């Protein structure tokens, strides 16, 4: 709990203004904490008198942390292919492993995946742990979780990375809970602290308004998920060699409670917008569902996909999987063109990590222009057709 040293406290009120939860306030000549305190420590850091500290129950260490070594990546497989995010994870995993002077392993569960292992070695893996079985062809939470748990317990990596994808975000929290490891979701930066080799995991919080750096001082492995397109894959190196280890899966780990009745891959209207390098997004300013025809045309011209703001989805102009923002998807494409989107914070959190943002809006004061690399002030129904025309011309 939060301990307030009443002798040191000068009732200056700095703690009060530093608390996001309204949990500490000055009463009379001393600060008082309420039940809303989450022990986030903001007040402790800000107190000029060092009058605050957090007292906790002494934590008993679960194990000797030095027994854990190596970086492990959970490789995602679906419909005969490895998800691009897995190569990106091998890219950052390679860097972390080199900094620590340890090996990089890749765990690959799947139905018939043997032919794919070489691509993982080329992308940076030293060891590929192959869990091949027909029951693993489709993603089943319980089987994938049990196998990952088993592999992690046996191999004791210090770091485990997974994609912040549907599969990764579903199975990894289960695994982390089972083995008592700390897990940080949606990291945008991962680095090793030189002094003690600790993994520093940085991620957005509060819908992207705040960044937080997180570490796991007392538990191993240190687990993190990373969204697609946040990390760069390593340059493929065909000369690399690696070891392939086939995991013996005990039969009881192949007993699933989950019946996969059907797998539906959506076409056109259900593309995974997180996988595209160019997105053209439409918002309320389109005025109607018809406007998306224009957005589609521009997206096709650029080889990108169509995204949307919540207003456009709520209006029924385009289905939910296209939604970018707090209650939709978070995307980080190279190019994001926002057409008729005002740029409310809820939308901004979903697209602000795009490399280049182009805003097209007729209201020059729209907040989207604060997020934009380039802004075009004008009616999108004039700007977009003209842009398409110019793109076609420049292509000859």
């Amino acid at each position: 709990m939060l301990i307030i040293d009443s002798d040191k406290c000068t009732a200056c009120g700095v703690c009060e203004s530093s608390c996001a939860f309204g949990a500490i306030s000055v009463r009379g000549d001393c600060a008082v904490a309420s039940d809303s305190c989450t022990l986030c420590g903001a007040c402790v850091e800000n107190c000029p008198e060092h009058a605050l500290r957090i007292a906790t129950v002494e934590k008993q260490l679960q194990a000797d942390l030095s027994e854990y070594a190596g970086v492990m990546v959970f490789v995602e497989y679906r419909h005969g292919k490895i998800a691009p995010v897995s190569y990106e994870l091998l890219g950052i995993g390679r860097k972390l492993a080199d900094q620590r002077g340890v090996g990089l392993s890749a765990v690959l569960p799947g139905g018939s995946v043997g032919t794919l292992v070489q691509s993982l070695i080329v992308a940076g893996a030293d060891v590929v742990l192959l869990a091949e079985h027909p029951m693993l062809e489709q993603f089943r939470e319980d089987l994938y979780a049990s196998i990952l748990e088993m592999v992690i317990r046996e191999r004791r990596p210090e770091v485990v990375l997974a994609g912040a994808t549907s599969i990764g975000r579903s199975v990894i929290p289960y695994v982390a809970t089972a083995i008592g490891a700390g897990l940080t979701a949606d990291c945008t930066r991962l680095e090793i602290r030189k002094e003690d080799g600790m993994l520093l995991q940085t991620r957005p919080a509060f819908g992207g308004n705040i960044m937080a750096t997180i570490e796991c001082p007392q538990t191993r492995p240190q687990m993190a998920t990373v969204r697609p397109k946040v990390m760069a894959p390593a340059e493929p190196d065909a000369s690399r060699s690696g070891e392939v280890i086939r995991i013996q899966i005990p039969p009881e780990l192949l007993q699933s409670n989950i019946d996969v009745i059907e797998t539906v891959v959506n076409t056109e209207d259900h593309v995974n917008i997180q996988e595209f390098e160019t997105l053209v997004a439409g918002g309320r300013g389109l005025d109607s569902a018809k406007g998306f025809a224009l957005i589609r045309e521009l997206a096709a011209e650029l080889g990108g996909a169509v995204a949307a703001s919540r207003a456009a989805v709520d209006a029924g102009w385009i289905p939910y999987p296209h939604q970018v923002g707090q209650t939709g998807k978070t995307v980080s494409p190279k190019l994001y063109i926002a057409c008729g989107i005002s740029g409310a914070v809820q939308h901004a959190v979903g697209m602000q990590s795009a490399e280049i943002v182009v805003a097209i809006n007729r209201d020059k004061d729209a907040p989207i222009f604060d997020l934009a690399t380039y802004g075009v002030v004008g009616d999108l129904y004039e700007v977009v057709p003209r842009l398409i025309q110019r793109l076609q011309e420049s292509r000859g």
Partner: protein
Amino acid sequence: MMKILVCVKQVPDAKDVRLDPKTNTLAREGVESIMNPYDRHALEEAVAIKESQGGTVTVVTMGPPQAETVLRESIACGADEGVLISDRAFAGADTWATSYTLARAVETLGGFDLIVCGKQAIDGDTAQVGPGLACRLRVPYAACVQKTRQVSAQAIEVERMMDDGYDVLRLPLPALLTVVKDINEPRVASLKGKMRAKQAKIRQLSAADIGADPQCIGLTGSPTKVVRVFSPEPRGDRTIFSGSVDEQVDQLVACLKALI
């Protein structure tokens, strides 16, 4: 008769939370507390299943005493009872400690056929507590459910959203689901519900009531520690073009040339 549990969380309205660039502290001026938006969809799904199958909906939340508000809001929207898991010892819990605490509470309350959670909470956006809770309770689960197709006393059939489409899964009960907002349109709290909510007695559970191990709860029980918070870097140079539409588009195309 189905016994359904819904886990909800009271969160600061994320759009209002900012880091003061001068003091590097969180500015909470005018930050409102709301029910996590995803949890409203979880509650709606639970209430809809109750209405079609018969049964009860219990809502739990872990939080400070004022989190009681979201329990009353849930009752107004069709839940039968609310349970507040509250203790200063829970403060500072990360997702690991939270799923432990919720699991102890669920076991204390006992006997649920179905547990429904929102996909994630908008303050942390981790989406970890649902699967973590399933792990603790050793029940099958499906994350990011976009549709409930069928429910019976023995099993539930759902569509689980995937990045490239969806899978149709059948899970034996008891089971746990986390839901996305596409699954339904939450109802507006009814007048009779609001009156019931006002009078409802909210059950409270402390760390001792659920037999929590002090090593596993709150800040102590949390493997992850936040060591630094800071504002995201603002976007670098921005160029807002001027002139006629044609002129602006020409400038834009010139700037984007390298990219396209």
